[in-house]
C-alpha cells in the first residue's frame, strides 16, 4: 500500500467503504481536493488538456488506442505486407529490388503442393489423436484426484508440473529418451532380446514411431491442462444436486452420466477448443525431436512453412501459404470463439 500523506486517510478500500457508509463527505473529499490543488499549479492550457484527457469520452479510450496502435503496428501492417509479398516473385537471397509482380502464381504453387496438403492433414492427425487422449486421460485423472481427500494437493501439484515446463525442454527430454542407447530401449531390452531383436532401436528414424513420439510428447505436456480444467469443473459441481440425485435412488452410474456429465459440459467444450487450437500450432517438439523427418513424415504445417522460409528462402511462397493458412484457420477461430462465448455465458449464468 502506498504511503498516504496523512495518517488518518488510509488508502485502504475497506476504509473507503466504511467512510462511504458513514457518508462523511469531508474525509473522502480531502485527498481529492489535494490532488486538484496539485494540478491547479499547472498552466491553464495544461490543466484544460488534463481535464480533456480525464473526460468520459476520452479517458476510457486512451488504453484502447494504445493497444490498437500496437496491434496495427505489430500484427496488422505486417500481415498486409505479407499479402503484398505473396503476389511477388522473390527469394530472400536476392535483393528485394529484383522482385517482380507475379499475380497469383505463388498461391497456385502452394495449392498444388502435395507437401502443403500433407502437412495440414498430418497436423490435424497429430492434433486429433493428442487432444482425444489428453481429454480422456485428463478427465479420468481429474475424476480420481477429485475423489482423493488427503493426497489431493500432492497429486494436483505433481500433475500440473508438465504444463509449466518449457515445451522445448520437453522436446529435448523426449529426444534423450528415444536415442538408440536410451532408457526406453533399456526398458524394452529384456523383451526384445528374447525375440532376438537388437534393442538399439532408433525410434526417431522410423516414420510411424517418430510421429508417435511427437504425439506422446504433446500428451505428456498438455494432459496437465485438460486435467486442470476438468479438476476445476469437478470442484465447481454443486454438491446438493448430486446428493439429491443419490437420495432419490440414482445409481452411481446414472449419477455420473445423467447429472455430473451434463454439468461438466462447459468445461469439456472449453478444454476441447483451447487444446485443439493450441495443438494445431504444434512446432516446438517437431524441431527438437525430428526436424520434420525422417523424410517429411513428421512435418506439421507450422514446420513446413518454417522450413520453406528459413531453409529454402522461399519468402513469397511462405507468404502465400501463410495467407491461405490464416484463411483456413479463420473458420476454426470463428467457431472456437463462438463456442467459447456461449459456454462462458452458461457458466456465468449458473454461478
Amino acid at each position, binding site marked *: 500500500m502506498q504511503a498516504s500523506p496523512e495518517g488518518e486517510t488510509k488508502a485502504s478500500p475497506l476504509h473507503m467503504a466504511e467512510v462511504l457508509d458513514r457518508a462523511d463527505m469531508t474525509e473522502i473529499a480531502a485527498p481529492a481536493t489535494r490532488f486538484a490543488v496539485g494540478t491547479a499549479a499547472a498552466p491553464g492550457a495544461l490543466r484544460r488538456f488534463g481535464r480533456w484527457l480525464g473526460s468520459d469520452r476520452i479517458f476510457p479510450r486512451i488504453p484502447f488506442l494504445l493497444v490498437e496502435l500496437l496491434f496495427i503496428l505489430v500484427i496488422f501492417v505486417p500481415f498486409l505486407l505479407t499479402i503484398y509479398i505473396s503476389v511477388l516473385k522473390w527469394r530472400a537471397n536476392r535483393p528485394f529490388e529484383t522482385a517482380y509482380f507475379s499475380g497469383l502464381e505463388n498461391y497456385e504453387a502452394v495449392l498444388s503442393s502435395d507437401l502443403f496438403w500433407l502437412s495440414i492433414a498430418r497436423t490435424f492427425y497429430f492434433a486429433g489423436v493428442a487432444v482425444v487422449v489428453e481429454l480422456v486421460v485428463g478427465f479420468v485423472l481429474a475424476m480420481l484426484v477429485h475423489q482423493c481427500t488427503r493426497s489431493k494437493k500432492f497429486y494436483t501439484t505433481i500433475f500440473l508440473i508438465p504444463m509449466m515446463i518449457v515445451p522445448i525442454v520437453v522436446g*529435448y527430454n523426449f529426444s534423450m529418451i528415444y536415442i538408440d542407447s536410451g532408457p526406453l530401449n533399456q526398458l524394452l*531390452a529384456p523383451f526384445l532380446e528374447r525375440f532376438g531383436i537388437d534393442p538399439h532401436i532408433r525410434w526417431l528414424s522410423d516414420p510411424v514411431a517418430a510421429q508417435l513420439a511427437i504425439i506422446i510428447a504433446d500428451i505428456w505436456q498438455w494432459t496437465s491442462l485438460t486435467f486442470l480444467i476438468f479438476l476445476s469443473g469437478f470442484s*465447481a459441481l454443486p454438491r446438493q444436486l448430486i446428493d439429491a440425485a443419490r437420495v432419490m435412488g440414482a445409481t452411481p452410474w446414472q449419477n455420473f452420466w445423467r447429472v455430473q456429465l451434463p454439468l461438466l459440459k462447459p468445461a469439456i467444450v472449453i478444454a476441447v477448443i*483451447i487444446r485443439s487450437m493450441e495443438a494445431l*500450432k504444434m*512446432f516446438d517438439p517437431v524441431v527438437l525431436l525430428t526436424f520434420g523427418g525422417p523424410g517429411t513424415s513428421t512435418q506439421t504445417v507450422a514446420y513446413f512453412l518454417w522450413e520453406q522460409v528459413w531453409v529454402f528462402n522461399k519468402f513469397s511462397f511462405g507468404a502465400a501459404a*501463410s495467407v491461405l493458412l490464416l484463411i483456413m484457420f479463420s473458420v476454426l477461430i470463428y467457431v472456437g470463439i463462438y463456442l467459447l462465448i456461449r459456454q462462458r455465458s452458461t457458466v456465468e449464468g449458473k454461478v
Partner: protein
Amino acid sequence: MALKAGLTPEQARARRVRRERVRRTLRHGILLAWTFFIAFPIFWMVSTSFKDSGEWVAWPPHWLPEAPTLHNYAQIFAFRSIDPSLSRQAAEQAFSIWKGLGDALLVCTTAALLALLLGAALAYSISRFQVGGRYFRHTILTIRMIPPIVVAISVLIYYAILIPYATSGVLGARISLFDTYIGLILIYTASTLPFVIWMMLTFVDEVPYTLEHAARLMGASRITVIRRIVLPLVASGMVVTFLFVFILNWAEFLLALTLTHPEVTTLTVLLNKFQSASEGRLYGPQAAIGTMITIPVVVLGILIQKHLVKGFSFGTIRK
C-alpha cells in the same frame, strides 16, 4: 446403498469397507502410474545433467550417474569454455548460459511489464466503459488464435524489409528491428496482450463499481479512484498475471527462433543451438541448461497454481 438379500448389516458394512479399500488402491495405483510417467523424463534430464560425457549415451544406460559431476554446470556457467580438450567446433557450441539468461530475463520481463501495463489499463476500460463494444473481449481473442507461424513470417518480412526501407527513406539510415531486443519485446507484448486482458478482466470485474462511483461522486479524480480503490484491490491479480505472462514468454520458442539470429539469444534458442550441433550432440550441457530453464518457471508456476486455469482458459473458467 440397498442391502443385498441374505446379508446382515455387519456383513454388508464389511463388504463395503473392503470394496472401498480396493477402489482406493486402484485409484492410487493409476495416479501413481501417471506420476511416474510425468516424473520420468524430468528425472532423466536431471540425472543426465550430472553425468560426464562418457555416460551420456552409455549402454546399458545408467539410471543414476555413476560418477556424479558438476562439470556440465561448470561448463554452462563458465564465462568462457573451460575444457581445452574440446574440438574447436564443440568449443564454439559450448558457450555459456549467461548471455541467454540475461537476454531472456530482459526480454521476458520488459515484455511482460509492458503487456501488463497496457492490458490492465485496457481491461479496466473494457470492464467499466465497454470500450470497443460488447464483443471487443472476443475480438481480442482472435489475435491469440492466429497460428504463430503466420505472425512469424509476416513480422520477419516486416522487420527485415519494410522498416529498414521506410527508415532509410525517412531518416536516411537503414534501421532494422530484426535481431533486436525492441523487436522481440514488441512482438512478445502484442502476442501476450490477449492473455493479460482476459486475466485482468476477471480481476477487475470483481471490484464493485459502486465503490468507485461513490468516490467519484464525492469528488475524487479518476486517477485517485484508480490509485486508491482499484489498484489495491487488483494488485495481487496483477502480480499473478505478470508471472503468468512471464512464464509464457519464457517458454516461447518459434518467434525467438525466427526473429533473432545471431545477436539476441533467449534460453530456448540457446538450447536449440545445442540440438542442431553438427558434431555430436552435447547431451550433458543441454540437460544442465534444460534444468536451469525449468526450475524458475516451475517454482513460479506452483506459486500461481490456483490461477493457472484462469490464464489458460482465458478467464472462461474462474475457479
